[in-house]
């Protein structure tokens, strides 16, 4: 299927989602006797053959530990691992490769900053500002930091559409604010947060900003230098890469003063029982043998995504999201939760009189994979007065057929609960 959508440059761009689907072997299967309709990419994206092949090739031909062997395989593994770092650097348009720290995922990236920057720079009476949209992983590490240091967590409210209240945000920024931590795109509602404005407002007061980019990177171009964020973190598995690998970007001047995080191999220059000399960035923040294959797989995923052209992906997904929004608005007894003007990927909704779990089970029997529950964003559910929602989330391999299948699945829900 092909959807033409206007590009930012005003040209009509054709995006061939049917061809893209063929790159993802898993999508070709039947589940429960029906063709798989995968609408859970906000939980994790599927992997293109290019990523699966890169992982296999690494283990088949190059597997060795990095940064320490004199032998050929170790040289190859090191080159591939550091090549993946440079790949991520280009993807984010970071100034230097050493600004890319490999971590397990977004959660670990946030915890790393909370425990290092938090330890040196956040003290009693200080404040950390987050938004009411955050995933638990961008709430709990800061709560833990507040408990440890006597700092205070301040939360920017959202409105009924799920948009961040920028006036309230500006009022919350003060003398004691030591960090702003905010999602780029809300995982529960799909709101695209005006992060550029938030960063500019924080920087006026010299407050650093960490951006949780987990739900953004698969759907839009992210340029950390244009955003001017201090930290940006994302998970490989939400951008067509493997699980267990993620990225923490930090500006050099932000990473340089961070104390070592985990101690171990690779993060040191020399060790004696009297004194340890720590390694340079980024290795100082990457103790132990890293997820080498994961980093290489992530590099392959970013190659794949850039090959599709992120501008085209964004325009295609925007048109598909609009189609899905209209389809769900037209479906009886369905109420969308999260109707921000600028959204990406996510259709969160409730069905009148039917709990989200029951909707999820019935859709599953139709071969449709959605997420149900609180999406690790319980405060968002509380804000909208619902215990749970059904979340259909899109990626560039989804088509209008998937939306149509969802709408038909919701008819089965009504039939069962008639």
């Amino acid at each position, binding site marked *: 299927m092909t959807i033409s959508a206007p590009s930012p440059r005003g040209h009509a761009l054709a995006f061939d989602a049917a061809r893209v689907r063929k790159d993802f072997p898993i999508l070709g299967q039947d589940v429960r006797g029906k063709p798989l309709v995968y609408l859970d990419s906000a939980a994790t994206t599927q992997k293109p053959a290019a990523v699966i092949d890169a992982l296999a090739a690494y283990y088949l031909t190059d597997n060795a530990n990095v940064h320490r062997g004199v032998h050929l395989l170790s040289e190859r593994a090191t080159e591939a691992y550091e090549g993946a770092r440079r790949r991520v650097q280009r993807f984010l348009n970071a100034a230097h490769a050493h600004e890319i720290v490999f971590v397990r995922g977004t959660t670990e990236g946030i915890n790393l900053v909370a425990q290092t920057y938090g330890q040196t720079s956040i003290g009693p009476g200080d404040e950390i500002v987050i938004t009411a949209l955050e995933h638990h992983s961008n709430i709990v590490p800061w709560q833990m930091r507040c408990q440890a240091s006597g700092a205070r967590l301040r939360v920017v409210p959202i409105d009924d559409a799920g948009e961040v209240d920028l006036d309230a945000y500006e009022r919350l920024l003060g003398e004691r604010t030591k960090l702003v931590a905010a999602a780029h795109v809300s995982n529960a509602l799909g709101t695209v947060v005006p992060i550029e404005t938030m960063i500019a407002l924080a920087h006026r007061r010299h407050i650093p900003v960490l951006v949780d980019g987990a739900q953004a990177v698969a759907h839009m171009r992210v340029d950390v230098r244009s955003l001017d964020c201090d930290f940006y973190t994302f998970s490989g598995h939400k951008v067509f890469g493997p699980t267990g690998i993620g990225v923490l970007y930090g500006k050099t001047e932000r990473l340089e003063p961070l104390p070592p995080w985990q101690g171990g191999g690779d993060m040191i220059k020399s060790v004696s029982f009297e004194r340890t000399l720590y390694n340079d960035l980024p290795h100082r923040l990457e103790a132990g043998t890293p997820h080498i294959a994961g980093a290489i797989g992530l590099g392959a995923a970013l190659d794949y995504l850039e090959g599709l052209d992120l501008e085209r992906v964004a325009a295609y997904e925007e048109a598909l999201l609009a189609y899905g929004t209209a389809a769900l608005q037209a479906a009886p007894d369905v109420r969308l939760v999260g109707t921000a003007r600028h959204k990406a990927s996510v259709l969160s909704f409730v069905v009148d009189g*039917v*709990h*989200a*779990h*029951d909707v999820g*089970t*019935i859709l599953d*029997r139709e071969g449709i994979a959605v997420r*149900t*529950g*609180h999406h690790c964003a*319980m405060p968002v*559910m509380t804000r909208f007065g619902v*215990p*749970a929602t059904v979340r259909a989330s899109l990626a560039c391999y989804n088509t209008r057929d998937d939306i149509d299948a969802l709408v038909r699945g919701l008819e*089965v829900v009504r*039939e*069962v*609960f008639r």
Partner: protein
Amino acid sequence: MADLRDLYQEVILDHDRAPRNFRTLAHPTRRAEGINPLCGDRVTVEIEVEDAVVRDIAFQGSGCAISKASASMMTASLKGKSLAEVEAAFERFHRMLTASAPPADVESLGKLAAFAGVREFPSRIKCATLPWHALRSALMGTGASVSTE
């Protein structure tokens, strides 16, 4: 659709739409809350026990059709039962959903046998057992919040 009807039987849908004993007790002697952190379902079970007999039992909370119907049918089936009978019902219900082979005496559960089909939906078993675990916590006297995880 056929297998969905095994899960969403008429009696279950009926208890979901019109849950029995969905209220609070004036003088509960035991109370416990059960929560399923994966989905946010929560149910509070209150019991009035006198002379080792359940004089009254009720529940509150929010959840899916399976957990709500399970709580409703549990309370309806246990009123007037001795604590020994309650414990036996818990065991039978639990075995019906979690034992490697379904027990032969499912029929002895009466209307509760309607939940036998939940076995085929592994992700939903905890929905059905949540109110029973809350009940058990209340009867054990701990009153502690129980969690499915």
